[in-house]
């Protein structure tokens, strides 16, 4: 037992700790799924449909089976029920139309890229070669491709269902008792107020994580082990068990090092299910690693909505109502939370503003394209885009500064906690302060003055300044709320803390990191709370045999839900250690205080450290009778509320009015994400999010041709930004600690993505608004911007295939079409 010990000097929380993860990542000692090799392992290659919609007439596998080193070739019929099914965990309405989703269908394919057969061979190259030899006869069916047309049921994506309309979901503030009647608000604004009506396109995006998905299944041993490049090992294990009948306890899922996800690996994939079935059938380990082309074509896509928005305001520019009508493209199947993604935006269109009346309507629609699901932000970027574009339009209508108009309508710092028209209670925030800081960083006033000069001078290159504020609901989620939304699971998280005999601490979390730096951030939390050195904490995750309970990582939830579970588990360890400390110190438990990892007897220099107690509990030679000899503890935390980070993002762009070229000159943002555990990690999350959001505004789009083939199916066609396209950012924070968790933290993973898209598009439109333009459809490519300037329209849709630039006869869709704008 020690006498006096210096308490830990520096607090870990708030420190710019360099990441624990990095040592292995910068030296190439990483365990990606594709690195795993097992004795006798076989390799899979998928035979995929080239058609968007077709009947499978016959599959001839003879030639492929005869190829060198091919072990077997299997179809959906061969695998039968053993292949399980891909689940939808969130039917957003009771009567949602949900097509059955087999990993490998037997009779009909519903999108180009769907798997119809799998080749099993001794090497990946031989499997791929043999896949070419599988002869599939298809009978092509008409395909439902365009979202608006699909919504009319003109062509059916799944003829048996009789409709493409999957579900209609509505929230109305008058019905919910959270606000007034939106139609009345709009009607009264038509008479003497302001009504803005617009229609915006949220183009289809591809998450495009850098590590292609990979899965290894080892059926030898008592448990079947599945390694997968997934964000959701726990949910995957559940889904495999639930649909194949293999007991959950016989399945171990491991997410080793995972190379990015952004929602794109929040999925139970057909390839995982096929690998699982093949391994069981053949009795040997198997591996499947997708190519990039397969990844872009068949890993789920994101966004893809049409948004019709009606904003009502009085003549002074105070908002009085907002009505939202969405069409959301689900693709060929309702993915694991596919239908729910737009609903995650349902409570966010009103954003930080005090709308007295609000209505949200969403129709989800099936088409014959790759299925959609969560992509960074999931529902909330779409909502923020909609409202922030509309606030700029309102400002333009009023002829006022867009920040002024926002300020007039946002919730004042003194009004928190604030119950919104969508029924959420925002805990804390200070929009004014974040906005002020962002304006300083950008040099807002000076840039406005420069803009005026250049506009007056009629410069060829015009300056535009884009504003976007945002808030989002983070930390999915209170289980009861998810229950009310008919979601299939809860939103709690689990953590346990194991005190090892040597004084080291193992922390097990149900969150599953794939680049977020949990090992570092969680170590900081535990080091502070438990009073142990940062380096003595080992964070374990992503293996269902080690972390037996968890709901994984998405929705900016790991820190705010998973971190809170950790805090609770650590507190339990300290509680458990206390009677042992009292016993060993022969003191009263009430006289003990826990500081810096040590129980001290108040007023004396007597004390015992947590490490000594861990050793004593391990030896178990001397402990109180009513105690079990262990300090280990676990906790499951179910959040009481979401948390609501917010921020103001400002962007200055230059637009060449002769070529349509857009270049970002400066980007500044000030986010309020509550207390910060590790500023370095937070900055990284913001930077990465910003570039993804900017990429939606300017570059990225998944484009299909008229027959339903993805033409942006490689990195030569799908424009991921590079170093040369991007710039360094000005990032700062204000701090309004969250009141819904002990650490006072708010989610940060999605913030950058959410606010940057509208900030950039607002800037582009601002640069050319004086030319009569009030919208440019995303991505704002030079071609679209140029066309908008020429025709003062919105630049039209992306042509269906790789067409020459500036072609005259493309099928243009005006994004303000039908909106009466």
């Amino acid at each position, binding site marked *: 037992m020690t006498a006096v010990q210096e308490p830990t000097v520096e607090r870990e929380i708030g420190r710019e700790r360099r990441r624990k993860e990095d040592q292995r990542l910068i030296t190439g000692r990483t365990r990606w799924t594709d690195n795993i090799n097992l004795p006798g392992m076989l390799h899979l290659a998928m035979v995929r449909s080239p058609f968007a919609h077709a009947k499978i007439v016959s599959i001839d596998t003879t030639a492929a089976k005869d190829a060198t080193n091919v072990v077997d070739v299997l179809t959906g019929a061969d695998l039968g029920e053993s292949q399980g099914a891909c689940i939808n965990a969130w039917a957003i309405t009771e009567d949602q139309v949900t097509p059955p989703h087999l990993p490998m269908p037997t009779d009909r394919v519903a999108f180009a890229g769907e798997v119809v057969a799998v080749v099993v061979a001794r090497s990946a190259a031989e499997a791929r070669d043999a896949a070419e030899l599988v002869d599939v006869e298809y009978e092509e069916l008409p395909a439902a491709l365009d979202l608006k047309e699909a919504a009319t049921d003109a062509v059916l994506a799944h003829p048996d269902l009789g409709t493409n309309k999957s579900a209609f979901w509505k929230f109305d503030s008058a019905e919910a008792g959270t606000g007034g009647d939106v139609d009345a608000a709009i009607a009264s604004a038509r008479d003497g107020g302001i009504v803005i009506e617009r229609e915006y396109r949220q183009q289809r995006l591809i998450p495009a994580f850098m590590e292609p998905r990979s899965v290894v299944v080892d059926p030898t041993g008592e448990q079947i082990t599945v390694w997968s490049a997934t964000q959701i090992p726990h949910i995957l294990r559940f889904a495999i068990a639930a649909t194949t009948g293999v007991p959950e306890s016989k399945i171990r899922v491991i997410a080793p090092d995972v190379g990015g996800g952004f929602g794109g690996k929040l999925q139970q994939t057909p390839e995982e299910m096929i690998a699982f079935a093949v391994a069981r059938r053949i009795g040997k380990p198997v591996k499947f690693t997708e190519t990039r082309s397969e990844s872009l074509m068949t890993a789920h896509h994101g966004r893809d909505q049409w948004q019709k928005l009606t904003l009502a305001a009085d003549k002074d520019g105070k908002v009085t109502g907002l009505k939202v009508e969405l069409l959301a493209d689900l693709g060929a199947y309702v993915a694991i939370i596919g239908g729910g993604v737009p609903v995650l935006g349902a409570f966010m269109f009103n954003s930080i503003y005090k709308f007295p009346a609000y209505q949200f309507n969403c129709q989800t629609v099936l088409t014959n394209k790759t299925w959609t699901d969560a992509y960074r932000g999931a529902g909330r970027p779409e909502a923020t885009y909609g409202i922030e574009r509309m606030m700029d339009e309102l400002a333009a209508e009023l002829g006022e500064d867009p920040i002024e108009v926002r300020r007039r309508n946002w919730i004042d710092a003194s009004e928190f906690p604030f119950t919104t028209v969508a029924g959420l209670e925002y805990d804390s925030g200070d929009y004014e302060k974040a906005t002020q800081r962002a304006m300083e960083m950008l040099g807002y006033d000076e840039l406005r003055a420069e803009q005026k000069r250049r506009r007056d001078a009629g410069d060829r290159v015009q300056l535009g300044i884009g504003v976007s504020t945002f808030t989002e609901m983070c930390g999915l989620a209170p289980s009861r709320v998810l229950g009310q939304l008919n979601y299939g699971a809860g939103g709690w998280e689990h953590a346990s803390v194991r005190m090892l005999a040597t004084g080291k601490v193992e922390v097990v979390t149900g969150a599953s990191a794939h680049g977020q730096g949990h090992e570092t951030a969680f170590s900081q939390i535990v080091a502070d709370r438990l009073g142990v050195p940062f380096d003595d904490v080992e964070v374990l995750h992503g293996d269902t045999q080690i972390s037996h309970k968890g709901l994984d990582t998405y929705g900016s939830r790991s820190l705010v839900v998973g971190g809170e579970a950790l805090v609770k588990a650590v507190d339990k360890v300290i509680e458990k250690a206390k009677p042992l400390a009292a016993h060993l110190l022969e003191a009263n438990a009430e006289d003990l205080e826990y500081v810096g990892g040590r129980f001290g007897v108040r007023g004396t220099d007597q004390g015992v450290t947590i490490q000594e107690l861990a050793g004593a509990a391990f030896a178990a030679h001397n402990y109180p009778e009513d105690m079990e000899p262990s300090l280990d503890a676990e906790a499951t935390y179910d959040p009481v509320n979401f948390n609501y980070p917010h921020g103001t993002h400002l962007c200055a762009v230059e637009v060449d009015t002769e070529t349509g070229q857009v270049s970002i000159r400066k980007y500044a943002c000030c986010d309020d994400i509550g207390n910060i555990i590790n500023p370095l990690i937070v900055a990284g999350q913001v930077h990465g999010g910003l570039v993804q959001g900017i990429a939606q505004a300017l570059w990225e789009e998944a484009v299909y041709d008229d027959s339903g083939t993805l033409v942006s199916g490689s990195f030569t066609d799908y424009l991921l930004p590079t170093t040369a396209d991007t710039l*360094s950012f000005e990032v700062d924070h204000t701090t309004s600690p969250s009141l819904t968790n002990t650490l006072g933290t708010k989610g940060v993973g999605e913030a950058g993505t959410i606010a940057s898209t509208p900030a950039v598009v607002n800037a582009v439109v601002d640069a050319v608004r004086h030319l009569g333009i009030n919208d440019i459809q995303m991505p704002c490519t030079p071609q679209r911007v140029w066309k908008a300037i020429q025709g003062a329209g919105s630049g039209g849709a992306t042509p269906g295939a790789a067409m020459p630039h500036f072609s005259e006869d493309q099928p243009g869709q005006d994004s303000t079409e039908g909106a009466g704008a």
Partner: protein
Amino acid sequence: MTRISLTVDGAKVADDVEPRMLLVQYLRERLGKTGTVVGCDTSNCGACTVHLDGTSVKSCNVLAVQADGCEVTTIEGLAQDGELHPVQEAFRECHGLQCGFCTPGMIMQSVALLKDNPNPSEEEIRLGLEGNLCRCTGYHNIVKAVQHACGASTGSTNQTAGVTA
């Protein structure tokens, strides 16, 4: 099958390979050099970048037979005697990686960039790394890491503790 002999991360190796085998496949599948990864099939991402006789190449774009008689350095051979290469150290110091999948290629390309131009401007860094994709970091801290590695000032800031409510 063709016989090749080469030096990889300082070790002499020889194998019979199929003429179509890519250098990256050879490194990963034959030598177990899994530090080098594959991120695409169109030579766009740069995740597979290694040094071939001192020059950076995308190893998915080189046949194993072309490396016959050459010296290859991968991310696994960059640290010497347990000492990280300054660029590796800089990536950690500046948080130039998140998931780390692009990192081996990014580091190898940065090392080559600094060899050619020991004092690059931000623009030169951005142009020099254009062939390497990263989906996580937004490149901000990657650029900073390269600046840090060559001892340049760190350019744009990441203030964090600014205003407090």
